[in-house]
């Protein structure tokens, strides 16, 4: 029975062309703007944790040879290149060369200078030198070459900004499914279609299911078209297509369920759109939609609250690594939202029907 409802709901939504066009074009436009604006941001970051140049100068005459040996050892054990400078200003060197960090060795101390955007490289070199010199003090020997194990999981794998923004904004706009549903919901409200549903005796669950499935299908179609267009025209790449599609499919369902839940509770489309947009904006903010999540100052404990963060990380990591530790949470978290929000929606509609005047 509900297949006719689903079919006609889809027709109503797809005939509200403004909504559908917005839904297809918005992710493309926003990601295109951000790709061009921040193309260098991720380029600076990517790969620079793998290999970079460290400049140094030695003021002490006595220990200069042992320091050179130490740095040569550190360089041979990693992809770090150490370049010696004589009596030059460290800040000038950092600003005028490709050097990521500069170490000034004094008589009994050393000072590390770090270029903007290369804080992580600064931390790496600081850690290496600290371990090496501490072992020297502890053993009373010459400084030993220290091997620093860098936890790669703390750093993003290299990702192109085109792919990053292309994927992230598909996720973000998919969370705004209520835009697509608005054509249907406003038509039902305007023409009091609800009364016809009531006198037909159709149960709330079937009504909800028909609406939920039809909105999900339209949103998923719109998002798929948008993703295809951005792949064709912007050159956005996706990782494992099947897993990525599964994540997007479930997040679209979660987005639909979230929107319909607020509509069931408020019974006002305007209020629903405001609430959903505010929530999605907050989830996007902490989840990496506006601030690249690798550079985000938001603590990890806060970021994991946002389903958008799980989806962003899973999709990006699937692209650059082919696997992701966030894959399971990116599927289960929105799935839990689908079940929870749907339950609340049906209950709210039943309560409204029972308590009707």
């Amino acid at each position, binding site marked *: *029975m509900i297949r*006719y*409802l689903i079919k*006609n709901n889809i*027709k*109503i939504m797809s*005939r*509200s062309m403004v909504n559908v066009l917005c839904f297809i074009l918005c992710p493309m436009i926003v990601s295109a703007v951000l790709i061009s604006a921040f193309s260098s941001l991720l380029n600076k970051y990517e790969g620079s944790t793998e290999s970079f140049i460290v400049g140094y100068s030695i003021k002490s005459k006595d220990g200069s040879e042992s320091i050179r040996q130490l740095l040569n050892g550190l360089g041979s054990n990693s992809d770090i290149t150490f370049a010696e400078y004589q009596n030059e200003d460290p800040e000038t060197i950092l600003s005028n060369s490709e050097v990521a960090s500069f170490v000034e060795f004094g008589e009994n101390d050393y000072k590390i200078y770090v270029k903007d955007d290369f804080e992580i490289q600064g931390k790496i070199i600081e850690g290496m030198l600290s371990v090496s010199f501490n072992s020297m003090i502890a053993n009373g020997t010459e400084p030993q070459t220290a091997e620093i194990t860098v936890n790669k999981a703390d750093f993003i794998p290299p990702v192109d900004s085109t792919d990053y923004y292309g994927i992230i904004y598909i996720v973000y706009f998919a969370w705004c499914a209520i835009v697509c549903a608005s*054509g249907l919901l406003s*038509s*039902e409200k305007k*023409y*009091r*279609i609800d*009364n*016809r*549903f*009531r*006198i*037909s*005796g*159709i149960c709330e669950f079937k009504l909800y299911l028909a609406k939920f499935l039809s909105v999900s299908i339209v949103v998923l179609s719109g998002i798929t078209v948008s993703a295809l267009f951005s792949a064709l025209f912007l050159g956005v790449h996706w990782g494992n297509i099947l897993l990525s599609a599964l994540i997007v499919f479930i997040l679209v369902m979660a987005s639909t369920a979230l929107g319909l839940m607020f509509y069931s509770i408020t019974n006002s489309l305007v209020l629903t759109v405001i609430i959903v947009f505010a929530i999605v904006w907050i989830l996007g903010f902490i989840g990496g939609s506006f601030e690249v999540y690798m550079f985000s100052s938001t603590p990890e404990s806060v970021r994991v609250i946002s389903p958008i963060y799980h989806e962003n990380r899973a999709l990006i990591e699937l692209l650059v690594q082919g696997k992701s530790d966030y894959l399971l949470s990116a599927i289960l978290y929105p799935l839990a939202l689908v079940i929870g929000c749907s339950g609340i929606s049906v209950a709210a509609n039943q309560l409204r029907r*029972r308590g*009707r*005047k």
Partner: protein
Amino acid sequence: METILRTIDLTKKYGSKVVVDNLNIEIKKGEVFGLLGPNGAGKSTTMNMICDIVRPTLGSIEFMGMDFRKNKSELLRKLGYIPQDLAIHGNLKAWENVELFTSLYGIKGEELKKAINESLDYVGLLERKNDYAKNFSGGMKRRLNIACAIGHHPDLLIFDEPTVGIDPQSRSFILDKIKESNKKGTTVIYTSHYMEEVEAICTRIAIMDNGKIIAIGTSEELKKLVVDNTESITLEEVFLTLTGKKLRDY
């Protein structure tokens, strides 16, 4: 004649305001029952309670010999409601609107296709079945509104002011169709502010005011309540005599 619908002490209160007050009416099978009343008399609330859109505060409804509340899902399928407000999707074609609302009653496949064509033919819109409802005139929308409620062949049809704001041709068409349905055995409850319509099609008429039935009977019987010579008075004059000329501003 067999009773198809009976209201028993049907009452609806909004706070302390009683909108429908202990209403007891019986609708006989195969009749066209007219419900008249000034604005705010409680007609639409009564209709909405019969259709399960509004929940009664007190009392009950018996439909086809069964308690309505207890057998709601079964009985709602035997009911067709044509609301005063147009309840059609503008962005759907005429046949799609009929398909959507008729399918809610479990009709599908070939049976559904047949029901769509029959319903549209019944209201004279078969040739316009592929046109969008939003492009229809007021009268055509009203007719489509009717088509959406009859596809499942209900035993009782409830018309809530179906001729508001339409041209005389469309009104005449709708009234003829109501008579035609009635001849085929469908019971009709009809509310309107147009007295001549009610007089033309209804076999019995009830006049409602302040939530109560103040008079009930055939047109002749109602006229006799006011004057002996029924030819010297119209139904509208009877209505005004019984309900008064005071404006009802709700």
